[in-house]
């Protein structure tokens, strides 16, 4: 009896927590800001989808309170939780009508309350409750579905959401060709997917996934049964196809997407560099942006047309110098922190990063570095008389640099130096007792890492055409560290994945700029709890997780 009561109480509590989340989303301004974004034209907006998702989540969680329980009861629990969540939103609507919440909460506008009560005026307060109950029951139905049905359903809905979200990006790409135009007309209305388009997308993706669930295993088996040489050929084919696609990417993507890709590339470069320090050698560095700045300023001062320039080199002469200067700077700033460990190291390097930025920004060094005005008029690089003008062309430069750095990093990882770095990461004292000269090994990590950042900064300088101190905030260091961890510590593909997720995705969702860091922060917190090993962990860690999973599986039940 008390068990049942606790269960229902738990469901109500779950609902209230998600209700609080919904109220937060409303008050923080997301619901209203996203309401303008139609996922399916005239039917569903992103703002309401967000609220509906909290209802779904509450129902799902409430149903999972007792996973093996009775189905009807689970549905009822879900509905209860959804009702509670809806009630919280309704409470907000009523409070908004009675009080002037706007004195405190800037987003608590009449538009918001109209939205929440679906334009039904004061009488509409019951609507969130009803919608919540429905969403909760739906969410509770989730765990009841078999995996076979759930996957296509989720993928179908997910693809509708993604298509609606990225419509603006896809639009110019699709318009470029006649076939694309036809796809566009079939799927999209002016704002968001058309109803039929949404249905098509849902059916195609969901159906495709259902078919794959049936046939995928056979295909995989077929590939595995192939003898070695065709399999290698198949893999090479896939690799070649991938390379060609990557090379053609900017042509189809247009300037904006290319720009985003260049940014992802620049962060990948920095990530690969920082990965040498943090991922391989375990040296935490939060001042990494300093070397990015040093690379950028070196190129700026060596190539710019303005009065600050000290030379008029070509880009190709300036880049090696910039890389060398960054490398040396990395070593020099590495010396004082050689004996600092762990968290302290992070803070000390953070200090150095800030010192560099503040010095560059100051009037004191203005005659040499331009102060807050920065260095202007950096010419675009030319290759064989061909100017790398826009992001489409610079993409190739970034790609080439990333491939080069990744190659170097890969070779280093499996070498004497790489092993010394790893030993250092695992146990600094024992590493030293193994005859490893900590000074050399650490300074190499700092220097090589900084060189990568310098290279990235050099490309950044020509991309923007000018360098300002404001481009070198602490935020960049934090971003780079975060992308390494989100990708998976020490994993090089992980760096690319991390850059795509933490730099690419937010750039693409730029219109939600105001909430970019809100989502980013929440994502980091969630990620550390749900997947602390990263999105693409190193092979060693993957095997480790696999082994421990097997150990859990093989334990006797009960």
């Amino acid at each position, binding site marked *: 009896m008390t068990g049942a009561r606790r269960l229902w109480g738990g469901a109500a509590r779950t609902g209230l927590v998600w209700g609080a989340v919904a109220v937060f989303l409303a008050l923080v301004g997301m619901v209203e800001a996203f309401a303008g974004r139609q996922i399916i034209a005239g039917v569903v907006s992103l703002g309401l989808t967000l609220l509906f998702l909290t209802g779904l989540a509450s129902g799902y969680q409430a149903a999972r309170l007792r996973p093996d329980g009775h189905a009807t009861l689970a549905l009822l629990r879900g509905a209860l939780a959804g009702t509670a969540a809806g009630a919280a939103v309704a409470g907000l609507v009523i409070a908004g009508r009675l009080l002037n919440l706007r004195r405190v909460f*800037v987003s608590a506008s009449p538009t918001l309350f109209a939205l929440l009560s679906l334009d039904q005026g004061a009488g509409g307060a019951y609507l969130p409750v009803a919608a919540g109950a429905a969403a909760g029951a739906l969410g509770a139905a989730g765990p009841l579905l078999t995996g076979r049905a759930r996957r296509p359903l989720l993928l179908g809905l997910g693809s509708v959401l993604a298509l609606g979200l990225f419509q603006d990006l896809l639009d110019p790409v699709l318009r470029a060709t006649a076939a694309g135009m036809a796809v566009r007309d079939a799927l999209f209305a002016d704002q968001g997917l058309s109803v039929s388009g949404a249905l098509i997308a849902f059916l195609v993706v969901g159906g495709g996934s259902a078919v794959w669930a049936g046939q995928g295993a056979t295909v995989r088996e077929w590939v595995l049964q192939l003898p070695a040489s065709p399999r290698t050929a198949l893999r090479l084919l896939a690799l070649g196809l991938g390379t060609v696609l990557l090379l053609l990417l900017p042509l189809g993507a247009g300037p904006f997407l290319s720009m985003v890709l260049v940014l992802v590339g620049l962060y990948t470069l920095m990530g690969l560099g920082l990965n040498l320090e943090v991922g391989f050698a375990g040296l935490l560095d939060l001042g990494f942006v300093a070397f990015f700045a040093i690379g950028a300023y070196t190129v700026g001062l060596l190539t710019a047309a303005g009065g600050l320039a000290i030379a008029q080199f070509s880009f190709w002469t300036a880049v090696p110098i910039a890389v060398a200067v960054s490398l040396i700077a990395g070593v020099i700033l590495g010396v004082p922190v050689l004996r600092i460990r762990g968290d*302290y190291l992070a803070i*000390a390097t953070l*200090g150095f990063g800030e010192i560099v930025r503040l010095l560059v920004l*100051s009037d004191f060094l203005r005659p040499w570095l331009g102060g807050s005005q920065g260095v202007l008029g950096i010419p675009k690089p030319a290759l064989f008389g061909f100017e790398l003008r826009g992001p489409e062309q610079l993409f190739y430069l970034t790609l080439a640099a990333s491939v080069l750095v990744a190659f170097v990093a890969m070779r280093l990882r499996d070498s004497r130096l790489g092993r010394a770095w790893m030993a250092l990461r695992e146990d600094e004292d024992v590493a030293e007792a193994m005859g490893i000269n900590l*000074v050399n090994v650490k300074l190499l990590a700092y220097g090589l890492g900084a060189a990568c950042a310098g290279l990235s900064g050099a490309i950044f300088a020509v991309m923007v055409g000018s360098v300002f101190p404001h481009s070198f905030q602490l935020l960049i260091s934090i971003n780079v560290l975060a992308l390494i961890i989100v990708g998976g510590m020490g994993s090089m593909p992980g760096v690319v994945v991390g850059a795509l997720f933490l730099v690419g995705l937010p750039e693409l969702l730029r219109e939600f700029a105001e909430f970019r860091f809100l989502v980013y922060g929440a994502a*980091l917190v969630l990620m*550390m709890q749900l997947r602390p090993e990263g999105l693409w962990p190193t092979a060693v860690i993957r095997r480790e997780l696999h082994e421990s999973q097997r150990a859990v599986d093989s334990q006797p039940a009960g």
Partner: protein
Amino acid sequence: MQPTWLWKLSFVDLSLWAFRAAVMVLVAWGTVGTLAAATYSGETWIELFVFGLSQGSVYALIALGYTMVYGILRMINFAHGEVFMSGAYTAYFVAEALASTGALNRNPIPSLLAVLAVSMATSTLVALLLERIAYRPLWRAPRLVPLISAIGASFFLQYAFRGLYGSGFKAYPEAEILRGKWIIAGVSVLRSQAVVVVAAVLMMLGLYAFVMRTRTGTAMRAVSEDREVAALMGIDVDRVIVVTFAVGAAMAGAAGFLYALVFKQVHFFMGFVPGIKAFTAAVLGGIGNIPGAMLGGLFLGLFESVGPILILDGLGIVAPYQLKDVITFTMLVMVLIFRPSGILGERLAVKKA
């Protein structure tokens, strides 16, 4: 074979020694230059001094939170600056309401106490949520994981408050009794700054008494000494951690209120820089060391206020106040390099073999 004494004379020691000597020479050179030029009157110095003290007491109060949490969890609560911001920002609305009804000037002391209470309560609430949601699940994770979580939480809180309260600066209403100056021992002092210093000192004394005299305080010290042993002694470690976060946050909330008295405006990003400064203060005093954080904060505030003119002006650097943070960070780096145990020393010994 090389003589062995040569091996001992390491290149690292030499460069560190050179670095230290260079900084010292610069500091001495600048100070002598400034004092010899005598551009600034005694009054200016006193003003700078008092301002430095009041700013330092704000740092000190924030630093307590860093130091206490680090002492117990060995973790840098990167979002602590945001805890400080949340209190000050939320309390703004109370202060504003009190000012618009006239209560702030009619009953200034209860009104100010109410604002202080709201600030402390909000910060505490935010810190408890932070601990529950972002940190507690990560107890046993590798050290980098909570740090990233804390960085994420810091972003989240900044932009959550921006979304909730708006992105502009908000001017804190000022109570009439805190306007103007007092003459204390022949020295005229801004009232608001004097109140801030006194209030901060009272808070710190209270906290010190709490940690040294109460049962909970004793439990906190025990846990920071050795968590496992404390747990074996029957101390509820989870509860102690929660209390630590709460107490540290309450101090940060109080700091938020005092900050508003001195600087008279709030903003969603206001926690970031003072957060880093307060962390510096905590390191300066020896992280994990409560009196150290207090001293470190006061010292940092003073140095930041007096330092740019005292040192940089004499070096002939234009616009020395632009470089005040350079001074702070240089000090941070120097302490980490040369005396990582801080001014008062850290209790935890570095374990080697």
